[in-house]
C-alpha cells in the first residue's frame, strides 16, 4: 500500500499560553487525543442518559406494569411532552455510543488476546443500542404522539417500550462475558482481574431481569425491587468502575510524542 501516509506528524511542545490555548493544542495535537475524546464522550453520554431517562422523560425509575389502562393513559397525559422532547434528544445523541464502544473494543485490542474479543464486543454493543434504548424511545414517542388513541393501544405501546428496554438483556450479558474472558486471560494487565469477576456479577444481574416478562407486580416485575432496583445499583457501580479503569488505562498508555508508528492497517 501507499508509503506516503506515514509522513511524520509535526509535534511541538504544548504552548505555555492561556488555558484556552493549551486546551486547543491538546485537542489538536495531544498524542492521546483520540482516547480522551472517546473517554469524554462516554462520560458525557452516561450523564446525558441519566438526566434524560430519569429527569426529562421520567421513564426511570420505571412506572408500574400493574397499572390499569386509564392510569397508563393518565401517565402519558402528565409526561407526554417530556417523553417526546427527551427522546428527541436521545435520537440526536444516540450515536455517542459508537466512540464509547470503540474505546472498550480498543481496551481489548491492548490485551494479549485474540482480536476476536474486541470485534465481538464492538458488534454486540453496536447492536445493543437498538433494543436497549431506541426501540423504547420509538414506542414511547409514538404513544405520546397521539394521546387520543385507543387506550388499549397506548397500553400496548407502554408494555412494548418497557419490556423491550428491560427485557432485552442477552446482548449485555454476552457482551460482559466476552469482556470478562478477555480480562481473565489477558497477560498485559490492562484491567485488574477483579474487574473481570465484576463483569460476571454484571452478567448475572442481566439474567435476573428476565422475570420482567412474566410478572406484572412484585419484586420481579420491571419496576421491582430485584429486577430493577438491585440491578440498577449493580449496573451503575459497574459503569462507574469501568469509566475510572478506562481513564487509568489511558493515563498509562505511553505513546510518546515522536512520529507516528507505522499504520498497521496499511501493511
Amino acid at each position, binding site marked *: 500500500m501507499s508509503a506516503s501516509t506515514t509522513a511524520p506528524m509535526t509535534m511541538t511542545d504544548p504552548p505555555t499560553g492561556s488555558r484556552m490555548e493549551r486546551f486547543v493544542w491538546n485537542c489538536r495535537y495531544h498524542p492521546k487525543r483520540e482516547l480522551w475524546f472517546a473517554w469524554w464522550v462516554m462520560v458525557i453520554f452516561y450523564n446525558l442518559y441519566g438526566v434524560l431517562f430519569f429527569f426529562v422523560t421520567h421513564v426511570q425509575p420505571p412506572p408500574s406494569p400493574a397499572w390499569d389502562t386509564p392510569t397508563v393513559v393518565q401517565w402519558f397525559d402528565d409526561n407526554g411532552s417530556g417523553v417526546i422532547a427527551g427522546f428527541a434528544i436521545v435520537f440526536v445523541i444516540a450515536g455517542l455510543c459508537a466512540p464509547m464502544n470503540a474505546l472498550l473494543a480498543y481496551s481489548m485490542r491492548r490485551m494479549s488476546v485474540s482480536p476476536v474479543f474486541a470485534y465481538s464486543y464492538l458488534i454486540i454493543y453496536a447492536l445493543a443500542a437498538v433494543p436497549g434504548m431506541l426501540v423504547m424511545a420509538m414506542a414511547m414517542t409514538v404513544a405520546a404522539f397521539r394521546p387520543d388513541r385507543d387506550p388499549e393501544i397506548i397500553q400496548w405501546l407502554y408494555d412494548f417500550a418497557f419490556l423491550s428496554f428491560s427485557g432485552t438483556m442477552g446482548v449485555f450479558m454476552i457482551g460482559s462475558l466476552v469482556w470478562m474472558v478477555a480480562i481473565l486471560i489477558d497477560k498485559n494487565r490492562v484491567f485488574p482481574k477483579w474487574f473481570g*469477576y465484576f463483569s460476571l456479577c454484571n452478567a448475572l444481574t442481566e439474567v435476573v431481569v428476565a422475570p420482567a416478562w412474566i410478572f406484572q407486580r412484585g419484586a420481579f416485575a420491571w419496576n421491582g*425491587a430485584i429486577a430493577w432496583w438491585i440491578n440498577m*445499583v449493580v449496573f451503575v457501580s459497574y459503569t462507574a468502575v469501568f469509566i475510572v479503569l478506562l481513564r487509568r488505562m489511558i493515563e498509562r498508555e505511553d505513546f510518546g510524542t515522536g512520529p507516528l508508528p507505522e499504520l498497521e492497517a496499511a501493511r
Partner: protein
Amino acid sequence: MTDLAGASPRPEQLSDEHPKFVPGQPDMWMFVLFETLLFTGYFSVYLVSRTQDREAFLGAQADLDLRVGVFNTIALLLSSWAIAGCVQAARNGDYPSALKKAFLTATFGVVFLVSKIVEWVRETRMGNTFTSDEFFSHYYFLTSIHCIHLLIGFVVLGVVIYQLRSPARRSQQLVETGATYWHTVDFLWVLIFALLYVVR
C-alpha cells in the same frame, strides 16, 4: 494463565507462626464479597415480602420437604470439604490425590444438581410453579440463580482440574481461586437453605 504459577510462594507447612497469605487471587475475594452483598439484597427483599403476607408464605412453604433441603446441604458441604482437601493436597504436592478430590467435588456437585432438578420437577407436579405464588417465585428465583452459580462452578472446577493435570501448569493460586469460588456457592446455599426451608 500459567504465568501466575508460583507467583506467590506458599508455605510448605502451616503452623501458627507461618506467614499469612490470602488464599487464591485477592480479586476473587472481591467477587465473593460483592456477590454476597448482592444475594443479601435478594434475601432482604424475600424476607420483607414474607413478613407482609405470612400466612400465604407459610402455606406455600409447607409444600417444601425439609429432608430434601438437608440432603442438598450435606451434598454441597461434602463437595466443599472435598475441594478444601484438594487445595491442601495440591499445596503438599500430592497432585494425584488433589485431582481425585477435585473429581469428588464435581461428583457431589452433580448430586446436588440432580437432587435440585428432582425437587423442581416434584414441586412443579404439585402445582407449585414460578408464577403460582409469591413464595414459590422467590423459591424458584433463588434456587435457579444459585444453580447458575453452580453451573459456572463446574466451569471453574474444569479450570482447576486442567491446572492439576499437567506438571507444566499447576498454579496453586488458580486452584485456590477456584476453591474460593466453589465455597462461595456452598455458603450461599447454606443461607438460601435456612431462608427457604427453615425460616418461619
